[in-house]
Every structure is written in C-alpha cells, then in structure tokens.
C-alpha cells in the first residue's frame, strides 16, 4: 500500500464516530436504491408463476352455459385462439364449525388436462365427486384453516346440506386473490357444482391467444362473443371480458406505485446524505490544513493532495455503498418474498437483481465523490505559509455583514451570544445544516397537510353518497332482483326509502370504470354541489330516463383523463358490446376517484339486456344512529333472503370509515417517509454538531481554562444547534408550502383530482416543537463529549 493510500485510509480511522455516521448515512441511501430491485424481483417471481399456471390472455364470464365437446372444440379452433379451458364458478355460503362464510367454488372439468389458468395441487389428492381442494390463500389470509380429511357444508337452493370433503390444498394465482377479500376459495368438480347449484354449464371461459396484440385480443373477444351468441344459450357476457396484456398481473400497478414511493424515500435519503458527506469532507480538509501545507512543503503537487482526499472520499463511498448494496439485496429480497407470500401465497426464491446492485454501487460512490468535490477543491487553495502557520483558535470571524448582524444580538447571556455567532463561522456547514432541517420541516409539513387533504377528499367522497345501505345480489346472474323488490324493501322496519340501482363495469378507451344506473329522482346521491354547483351540465330528465336515452354524467377526473367535454358523444364498452352516449354532465365528486359514469337506470338495463332487473338497491334508513342502521341492515338482509336472494349489504358509514382508515394507512406511509427523512436529518445535525465540537476542541479547552463550567459549554453548543434548527424551521415553512403545492399538482396530474390545498397552522407549531426537541435530543451525545473533555487534552488537540 502506498504511503498516500495509507494516509487516505488512516484519515478515516482518525475520527471513527464521524466516519461511521457518514458511512451509515451513505449505506442507508444506497440501500434505498436497492429497493428499486423489489419491483423487478416481484415481477420475475410472478411471471414464473404465470407461466407455470398458463395465465389466460382473455377470459369471459357468462351465465352458466352447457357446452358440448364439439362446441368446446369449435371454441378452441376460433381464429387466434391458442388454448382454451372452461371452468364453472359458484358463490355459496358454507358452514364450518358453526361459522358461516362466503365461499367461491371453482369446478374444474379435468384436473389432469388443464390448458389455461391451471389449478395446481400443492398437497393431498385431486378432488373427485363431492370433494374439494382448499386454496392455500384460505389459511394464509386467515379466512379458513382446513386440511385433508376436514369437511365443509354447503346448502343447495332446496335447502339441502351438501358435505364436501377436503382432499388437499390447491392454488391458482387468480382465484387466490379472492381470499384477500375474505372469500374462501375451493377447487372442486363440475359434478359438485351441478349438485349444489342445480344447474349445469360453465361460467368462465379462458383463452390463451397466438397474437396478443391489444387489437387482436379485442377482436378475438368479439369472435368468441359472436360464436357463443350464435351457437349457445348465451345472450351477452355477464361482465366485461378480462383482456390481459402479456405479463400483466393484478397488483403490479399498485405494487409499482408503492415502490415508486419507496424510491422517493431513497432519493430523499440520498439527498440529505449529500449534505452530510459534504460536511464530513469539509471538516477533514479543515482539520488537515496544516498537513496539506506540510505535504505541499515537502513536494506534493496540488494534484497529489487532491488525489489523496479523493481517495478518502471514494473509500467512504465504497464502504458505504458496499454495505448499502448488501443491505439493499437482503431487504429487497425479504420485502419481495414477504409480499409474494402475503399477497399471492407462494414462496418466492431468494433472488438478486444485479443491475440494481451495480447501479446502487455506482450511484453510492458517485454521490459521495460529487458531494466531496467542494472540499476537494478547497485543498487546492491551501497555501503552504498560511497552512503551516495555522495554530490555536482561528480568528477568521467578523468581516461579513452576517457576522456583524449576529453581533448586534444583545441582552442574552454571553455563551448564548457566542453560540449564535458561532453559527456563522462555518457558513457552508451551517447553510447545509439549515437546508437539511428546512427540508425535513418542509417534508413533514407537506406530508401532514397532504395527508389531511387526502382524508378530506375521502370524507367528501362519501358525503355525496346519501344512501345508508347498498344491497347487492351475489355475483350470480341467475339471481336477479327486479325493481319491484324496492317496494318490498321500502316496507322493512327502519327503511325510509329504497331505490334500485344497476352497477356494472364499462370501458372507455383502455380505462375501465364503474357505470351506475340511477333512477332519475334518486335519493342516493346528493349531486347538488358536485354536479350542479361545482361541476358542469345537468342531471337527466324524467323524459330521458323513461325513453332510456343514452345520456351520461361522467366524473371530472375521467373527463380530464379522456378529454371528454360537455356535449361530447363517447363510446362505452360494456359486457354486451360498444354503445354511444351523450355527455350531459361532468360531476366533480371524489367518489371512485372521480372516475365513474352515471346513467339512467332504464338506459343501463337496456344496454345490458337486463329488462327490469337491478343488481342492487340503495336504502336510506330513518335514523343516523349507527346501531339502528346496523339493525336495519340485518332486517333488509333477512327480507332479501326471504325473497330468495343471496344479498351482500354494504353499510355506507362502515365503508366510509374503512376507506378513511385505508387512506390513513397511506397517510401513515407518508409520515413514515417524513420520519425517515427527519431521522437522517437528525443524524446529519448530530454529525454537524460533533464536527463543530471537534473543530472547536481547543476553544472548549480554553473556555475551561478561564473558568467555564460544563453547563456553560453545554449552553454554548446547544444554543448553536437550536439556533441553526430554528433558522432551518423558518426556511422550512415556505418550503413546506411549496412541497404542498407539488403534492397537489402531482394529484392533479396523476389522478386528475383537485385536492384541497391545506396549510394548517397547527403543523407549523408542531414542526417547531419537533425541530427543537429533536435537536436537543441529538445534541445530547456531542454535548456530553464536549463537557467531558479535559482542558489539557482539549488544548493539545490537533
């Protein structure tokens, strides 16, 4: 090892605590970059699963349709179809150990011959007759815990109990997803489905295609529809066809969003660590002014000195990046595996995304060297004479306007005065500390206000919905309710009004949105403010409803995403095909994130070929009391059951609370980001103060020489820290406002929603308290070091 390299290495070990701080910060930042690996790792793991299960390209849902072998062969031979598999699904209520649970039974014609959406047996035996496999997600998602040999009881329409024996555990990527919604999933035989439902036929037809171009897939959907309508009992698909682009999987988008969120976190950490690295290198150079001068005096060129310190910073970068990349590999893999286990119920293998590792290392070292550059260039300017003559306490204070300004602060104890003035001695370091604190304060204020805005939007989204209960029939097309049922529900004790609704999915361009069919004089929606006051256009007239006119009111966000204007004619793809509608209103409600379509009930019924059927009812109760609403909910459920319907009841206040709680989780994630940023900033602040104390060790010794006690030294440095934190807080206030605006703008761009612009004074106050308390906490250890220093050691310190 050359003497110069040795020096660079030794420079790091001279101030171990500072080096460790800096390396930890770099490592955290680099680890953050490593989190970018989670998305590709997850994608890689899921793609392997999808390949193993032969995930479909298109899937259509129909009312149970019996298909002959010839018809199945014909479907397999349709243009562009590669493979095809039929399945029969049935939503039931099962009884297990005295409990009643919603369950999805999936009937597979032949477990040994599954061409698409394969159900895999992970343990036990393939089910035969009245036997089932329990989905592994049932236990993973705490829905139901069953093993081979156990049994479940299902009632058929005649009220007869059917006992199904569990033969093992199975899994399927798509169906397992239902278990996350609290629905137990079982794989069984077509015979079992027929016996329980009393009907024959398939409900799901899934296809892999030869050409997976979006246009080709859309065309194949039409070809399949045409074949089924022409050759079977199918009138229309029950829902929109499920068209999957190659490699698509449920949750990928939200997963990517979460990872983007993590990425923001990583960049924030890296950004903050820039200041810390710059500080560290500056201090190393300051401390070694005499050594630099000495090196130059004995023949070192400016380049040699530069290289020596460059090596020191590169060593920090290499060690920090190395540790960070290692941590990143572990954390990324652990997060990805936990996600796969919890979300999809499979054990992903430990995997490393090497491109991310390489990028982490490169960025880690690069960022450190970049942040060190100002300090490195300082080494070039050190003059031999000035450097060699630098002894004792430096007296370079006073020439600037700022120094003079701080000197005018009077009426405070001398050490407080010194603490305030000291803040302007290392201006670069102080500015970077102020900026770090400002950044943290800004992020915290923005996150808190942004969180409030989000919660406010959620509450307002539910405010516009004036229904208390929404009764929907089980997702079974053979079980339709008619609008006449509304009158029967309206007669239930506790119900003030009931009205039918039809909710379905519609596609506009590539965007899938809910399409609601409301009665014209609806009491379920309070659109006075969101449509008539803050929106554009109007609600439909009784005449338009009566004649089933193709008129719609669209959500504001949807109109912005798809460039829809009032008066436009838009094409909506529904389960029955494409239809054109005239836009008569643009509603500013936050419901469904502003992406919805409202149309007359009669129009939706006509488009879906539903006659007078409705798939749900909005119910208003005669009390605001939650217990009374719950009681009415039970009575409505019993009434529908008595009428022969398997209904789910959504309680508005519960849904609102759940949604608010869900968004509070998101807000908590925001706050977590703030917390990490604050933590890094506090580490930076502590490091700055440690450096200030190291810089002023001789001064501390001198203070002790002339009678300063521990409390005087403590007060001096805590004043300096608090003063810097206070200035950071001041700068952070407008920064917080700016970040809030960015946040609102991001919502406007990303979600096309106008988020309430909030800047609560309470958070301004709290941020000051946190900045001050945080500073007092982090300066504890540096202060202890300063006060424990013996004057003799301090004066000799170089």
């Amino acid at each position: 090892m050359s003497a110069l390299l040795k020096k660079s290495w030794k420079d790091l070990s001279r101030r171990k605590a500072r080096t460790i701080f800096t390396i930890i910060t770099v490592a955290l930042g680099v680890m953050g970059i490593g989190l970018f690996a989670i998305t590709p790792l997850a994608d890689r793991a899921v793609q392997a699963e999808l390949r193993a299960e032969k995930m479909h390209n298109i899937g259509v849902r129909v009312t149970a349709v019996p298909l002959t072998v010839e018809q199945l062969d014909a479907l397999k031979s349709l243009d562009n179809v590669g493979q095809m598999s039929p399945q029969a699904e049935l939503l039931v209520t099962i009884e297990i150990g005295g409990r009643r649970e919603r369950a999805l039974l999936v009937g597979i014609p032949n477990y040994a011959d599954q061409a698409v959406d394969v159900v895999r047996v992970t343990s036990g035996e393939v089910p035969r007759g009245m036997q089932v496999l329990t989905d592994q997600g049932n236990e993973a998602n705490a829905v139901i815990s069953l093993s081979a040999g156990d049994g479940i009881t299902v009632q058929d329409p005649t009220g007869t109990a059917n006992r199904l024996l569990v033969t093992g555990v199975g899994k399927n990527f798509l169906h397992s997803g239902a278990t996350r919604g609290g629905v137990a999933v079982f794989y069984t035989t077509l015979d079992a489905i027929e016996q329980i439902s009393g009907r024959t036929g398939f409900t799901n037809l899934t296809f892999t295609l030869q050409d997976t171009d979006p246009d080709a897939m859309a065309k194949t959907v039409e070809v399949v529809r045409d074949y089924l309508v022409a050759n079977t009992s199918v009138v229309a698909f029950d829902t929109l066809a499920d068209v999957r682009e190659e490699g698509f999987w449920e949750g990928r988008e939200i997963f990517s969003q979460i990872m983007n969120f993590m990425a923001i976190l990583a960049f924030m950490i890296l950004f903050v660590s820039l200041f810390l690295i710059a500080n560290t290198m500056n201090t190393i150079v300051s401390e070694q002014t005499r050594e630099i001068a000495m090196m130059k005096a004995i023949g070192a060129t400016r380049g040699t000195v530069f290289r020596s310190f460059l090596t020191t910073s590169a060593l920090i970068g290499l060690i920090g990046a190395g540790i960070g990349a290692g941590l990143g590999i572990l954390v990324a893999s652990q997060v990805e595996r936990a996600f796969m286990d919890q979300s999809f119920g499979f054990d992903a293998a430990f995997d490393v995304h090497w491109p991310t590792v390489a990028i982490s290392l490169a960025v880690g070292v690069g960022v450190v060297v970049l942040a060190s550059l100002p300090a490195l260039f300082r080494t070039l300017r050190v003059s031999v004479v000035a450097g060699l003559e630098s002894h004792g306490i430096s007296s370079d204070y006073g020439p600037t306007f700022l120094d003079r300004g701080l000197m005018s602060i009077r009426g405070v104890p001398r050490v407080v005065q010194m603490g305030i003035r000291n803040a302007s001695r290392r201006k670069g370091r102080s500015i970077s500390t102020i900026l770090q604190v400002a950044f943290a304060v800004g992020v915290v204020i923005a996150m808190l206000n942004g969180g409030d805005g989000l919660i406010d939007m959620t509450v307002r989204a539910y405010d516009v919905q004036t229904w208390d209960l929404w009764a929907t029939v089980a997702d079974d097309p053979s079980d339709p309710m008619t609008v006449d049922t509304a009158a029967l529900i309206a007669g239930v004790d506790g119900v003030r009004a009931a009205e039918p609704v039809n909710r379905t999915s519609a596609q506009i361009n590539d965007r899938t949105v809910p399409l609601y069919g409301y009665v014209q004089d609806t009491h379920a929606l309070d659109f006075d403010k969101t449509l008539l006051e803050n929106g554009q256009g109007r609600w439909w007239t009784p005449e338009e409803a009566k004649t089933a006119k193709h008129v719609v009111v669209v959500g504001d966000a949807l109109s912005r995403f798809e460039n829809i204007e009032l008066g436009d004619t838009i094409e909506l793809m529904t389960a029955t095909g494409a239809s054109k509608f005239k836009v008569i209103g643009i509603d500013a409600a936050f419901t469904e994130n502003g992406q919805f379509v409202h149309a007359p009930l009669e129009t939706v019924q006509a488009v879906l070929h539903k006659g007078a059927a409705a798939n749900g009812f909005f119910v208003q109760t005669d009390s605001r009391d939650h217990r009374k609403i719950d009681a009415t909910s039970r009575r409505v459920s019993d009434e529908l059951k008595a009428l022969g319907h398997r209904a789910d009841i959504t309680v508005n206040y519960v849904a609102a609370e759940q949604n608010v709680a869900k968004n509070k989780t998101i807000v908590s994630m925001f706050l977590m980001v703030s917390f990490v940023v604050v933590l890094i900033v506090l580490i930076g602040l502590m490091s700055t103060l440690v450096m200030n104390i190291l810089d002023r060790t001789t001064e501390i010794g001198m203070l002790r020489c002339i009678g300063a006690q521990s409390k005087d030294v403590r007060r001096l440095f805590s004043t300096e820290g608090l003063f810097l934190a206070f200035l950071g807080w001041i700068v952070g206030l407008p920064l917080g406002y700016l970040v809030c605006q960015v946040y609102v703008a991001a919502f406007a761009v990303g979600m096309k929603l106008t988020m309430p612009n909030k800047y609560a004074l309470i958070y301004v106050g709290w941020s000051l308290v946190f900045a001050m308390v945080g500073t007092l906490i982090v300066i504890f250890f540096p202060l202890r070091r300063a006060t424990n220093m013996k004057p003799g050691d301090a004066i000799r310190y170089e």
Partner: protein
Amino acid sequence: MSLVQLRDLQKTYKTGRLEFEALKGVDLDIEEGQLVAIVGASGSGKSTMLNMITGIDRPTRGSVTIAGDRIDQMKEDRLAAWRGANVGIVFQFFQLFPTLTALENVMLPMDFLRRGSVAERKKRARERLELVGLGDKVDNLPSELSGGQQQRVAIARALVNEPKVLIGDEPTGNLDSKTEAAMFELFDELNKQGKTVIYVTHSQALAEKARHKVELVDGQLVRA
C-alpha cells in the same frame, strides 16, 4: 506556606503503545509575589509543569497545592471555577474567541464566575484593556487586531478576575522582539504591583529578566 507547592510530581503520557514520562517526581515551591521563568529544552516538561500548576492537566502521581488548595483532587467543574478565580493564563497563540470583541473576551471570565452586574463587568474589562494600552480597541474583533494587540487582550483577560497568579505559556513566542520586550515590561510591572507571575519561555533574554529561574531537563528539576 508557599503559593505554589508541587510534591513528587510525575506525569506520564500514553500515546498508543508508547509511554512518555514528561515529569519525573518534581518538588517545587514558589512564593507569593515572585517573578519566575521556567526554562528548558523542548520536551523537558516545562509546559507540562505549567499545566499542572494551572490545573488544566492532572498529575499521574504527586500533589499540586496552590494557595492552600489541592487542585489535583478537585472535580473538573469545581476546578474550572477555581481556575477562573485564581489563575490567569496567557498562551503563545493568544487563544481569543473570534466571535467576541476585545471587551467581550475580557468580560468572559467574569461572566463565568457571575461576578457583579453586567455594567460592572464591562467597566472592569474596559479598565483592564486600558491597563494593557488597548482602551481604544474595545469593540474590535480579534481578526481586527495585530498579534501583539491580541496578546495584550489575552493578558487583560487573564487579569480581569484578580487572580493570585498570572501564568504565561510561551507568552511572547509568537511576537516580534519589540513586542516581546513591551510584553515583559507589562509582566514586570504587574509583578512589582504584587502579582505572582510564572512563565515558560524558550527565550534566553526573557528568562534572564526573571527574578527566579526554574530549569527542567528531561522532566527533572535541575535548578530552582
């Protein structure tokens, strides 16, 4: 009893695996009102002995008694307060606080001892600065003063609490010969007024001017 009483004073420094014995059992008495120069070659233990007398360093063995106080047994904070009240120290590199004006630098030891009101401290600091000939520089920062002026501020600061003893660690080591002479005149004058003055110096001329000379060789006293 002597003002300064050192008994069997030993000090060993440890640097990594190396040990260096700076003082090897020194016994010394300095009476009140003396003007003492401590001389010796570099590394002989002069500054170490001075640090023992001021209490800014502690002996490995032996005792340090100043004006009847065993300072080697005092706790750090008590010792700091004691030092502020009893010892005035002048260093080679002035060691003024750069963010404080000359007046504030001189007031600082009084601030630490909370002596009198702020107005009284100001008045006294101004008097001390006038005594060292810097009555017109009270509001100047150290960066606005010459080396000699800075050293005079340091002396004013050392004197402001009326210490029993004034101690200089190479007090003129960083000054030109003309300023050195002026500085010694100030020390001499203070001594004549009754102040005990002890200083370490490399300067033969300055050493000769002292009324008592203490010489150290390799950590041992050869002349007292």
